[in-house]
């Protein structure tokens, strides 16, 4: 069966600015919002946009990411004609090569794409929080007879120099692209989401004997503009967050906690799927106080939780107080512990009476499996 469009998710990034949280796992695998991982948003957007072939390109510390994606079953992609496929660097007659850039990662996996032989290819990055219908973007791409469509989002002009900025004409045609411009001419930032006509891209990438086409932003988009290809900007106006730093990860989680948040996680028409674990319902004890909080399965709460997100199987003992924090899965919090403005990594243990207190501008981070307080 010929595929109209398949997706390739670039999930190899390390996310160095997330420090301890990405020391052993890739950024797309970082837990988010109580029971999700960052990549669930891109994966679920694919599932909800009826894209059932997704190649997930991994590289940096891929174990937990590969385990999480599996065959794509959690996203309903495990059918006769669909599936998620983990694509990792491999050695061939040309030697072993790690992916040098986003476009390079696609070239290396050309066999996978050829096997499906799609008309269009959707390139996504695995580390953004948003809900988007890629079919609508494809319709836009087709209507413009484009060979490349780049999704863009308006950002505040003073922040525009942090992004790849697209300068467009009144028909949304991209006439100029500037990577992190000092003096931005527009505020339309690239979201790292591209739809290419596969034949044309394939040709460009295979004709590139010097290996110059390493990166979409740096090399491929400028080359398309030089070649006078039809390159269009698809404007997205919804919630979109790059959770590249500890502060932005914390902030995105706290936004997620707002009752009428734009992401609307309880919307059953556009569900965010994740690997479901088998856990008990959460147990709230007689002395517990839970307010303004999101609580996942398997938690046992005897203490106070305010303005926080608790992932699966978190234990909070009597007298403990958790405020303004994200607690990842399987964390144990002892008696009378105080946690404020913090992110606590999976499997961490915070012993009785310990304090983990940050501030809004300096979030305290406890790494995965770390033990705080108590007798060592």
């Amino acid at each position, binding site marked *: 069966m010929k595929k109209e469009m398949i997706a390739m998710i670039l999930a190899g990034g390390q996310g160095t600015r997330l420090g301890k949280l990405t020391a052993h796992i890739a950024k797309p695998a970082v837990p988010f919002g109580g029971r999700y991982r960052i990549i669930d948003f891109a994966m679920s957007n694919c599932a909800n946009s009826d894209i059932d072939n997704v190649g997930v390109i991994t590289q940096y510390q891929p174990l937990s990411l590969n385990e999480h994606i599996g065959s794509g079953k959690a996203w309903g992609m495990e059918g006769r004609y669909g599936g998620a496929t983990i694509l990792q660097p491999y050695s061939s007659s040309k030697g072993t090569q790690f992916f040098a850039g986003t476009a390079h990662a696609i070239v290396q996996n050309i066999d996978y794409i050829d096997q499906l032989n799609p008309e269009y290819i959707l390139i996504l990055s695995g580390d953004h929080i948003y809900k988007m219908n890629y079919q609508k973007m494809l319709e836009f791409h087709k209507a413009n007879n484009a060979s490349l469509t780049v999704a863009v989002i308006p950002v505040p002009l003073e922040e525009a120099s942090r992004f790849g900025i697209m300068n467009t004409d009144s028909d949304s045609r991209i006439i100029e692209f500037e990577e992190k411009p000092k003096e931005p001419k527009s505020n339309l930032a690239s979201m790292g989401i591209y739809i290419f006509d596969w034949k044309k891209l394939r040709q460009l990438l295979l004709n590139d004997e010097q290996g110059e086409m390493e990166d979409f932003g740096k090399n491929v988009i400028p080359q398309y503009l030089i070649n006078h290809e039809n390159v269009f900007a698809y404007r997205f106006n919804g919630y979109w967050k790059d959770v590249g730093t500890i502060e932005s990860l914390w902030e995105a989680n706290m936004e997620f906690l707002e*009752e009428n948040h734009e992401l609307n*996680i309880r919307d059953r028409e556009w569900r965010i799927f994740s690997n479901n674990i088998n856990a008990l*319902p*959460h147990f709230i004890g007689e002395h*517990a106080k839970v307010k303004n*909080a999101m609580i996942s399965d398997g938690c046992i709460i005897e203490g106070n939780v305010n303005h926080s997100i608790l992932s699966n199987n978190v234990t909070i003992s009597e007298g403990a107080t958790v405020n303004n924090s994200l607690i990842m899965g399987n964390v144990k919090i002892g008696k009378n512990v105080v946690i404020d403005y913090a992110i606590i990594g999976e499997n961490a243990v915070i012993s009785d009476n310990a304090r983990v207190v940050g501030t809004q501008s300096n979030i305290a981070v406890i790494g995965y499996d770390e033990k705080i307080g108590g007798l060592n």
Partner: protein
Amino acid sequence: MRKNDICAVLSLTEQSDSLRALTLKRPIAALPFASRFRIIDFPLSSVSEAGVKSVALFIGKSGRSIYDHVRSGSSWGFDSHVNGGIFTFSQQFYKYSLGEEVGYEDFYEDLIEFVKRSHVGYVFISGSKVIANVNLEDVKQEHIESGCDITQIFDEGHRNLNKYLLSTPKLYEMISLAVKEKLFVEVDELIRHYSAKETVNTYIHLGYTAIINDLSDYFYANMDMLDSQKFKSLFYASNPVVTKTRNGAPSFFTDDAIVLNSLIATDCVVRGHVERSLLSRRVEVEKDAHVKNTIILQGCHIGKGASIEYAILDKGVQVGKGAVIKGTPDNILLITKNDIIGENEERRV
């Protein structure tokens, strides 16, 4: 004995008048328990942990709710065996209505065929109205050591849990005797009937156990799960209890929420007061509503200022603003599936 040398036969045909309103469209085995489980999860988890590959479910009626929950059995790993899996036999009540001989002979035939094709040495037979986390590995060990024909399982209070382990030849022997003597009964009853002539070992199951015979049993077994000792005894002392996993957002509690001593599943939104209660998935409790000593099943909505006590709300019940639903500890009020309780309406026992 090999690890996989047992097949399991679960009889889901038990009935109860007092539970009628809850079990009109589902067997007792399909009743929700502890906010996210169903009673059938307990025997299914027990046999799955013991490496059982083939499970037969004998269902009284159409079994829609059971099929919907069990599907291929993938949650318990029954779909991953090269041989084996979940085998369902529904409409048993209809078959029996054709007359004992026709209906039950058909049943015996299905049973023998299932056991034969499982290629096992032992059969585990169980009803489905007992909530207990039985370690079948243990039962098997003890059964072999005892050298008896049959092992029956009791709880610490010497109650018969209606669970048996016996060899396949012994089961065939009993069935052929039953056909000859024209004794047409359910398989558990068959074993009880003939066990007088056999050597019987009694295995005592330690840990929390509930037998669901009526509405009050059902209500209080759920309430027992708010006692952390009993909760831990059932869920943490032996095998993990596995259920069908579902996708849902974490539950959300607003600034106004007050929740005490409760068990809450995913995808709930709580804006009001919840105390000593169990909430299944996708339950919403609006501001100033009071829910106390109550079981609320999936998808219910409790309007602003409503007050609910000693009640069971079946799936999809909509409670209007300011409505009052009041049962008593001795007389639990049941609100049936998808019922709509109007604004300020009162329902009392």
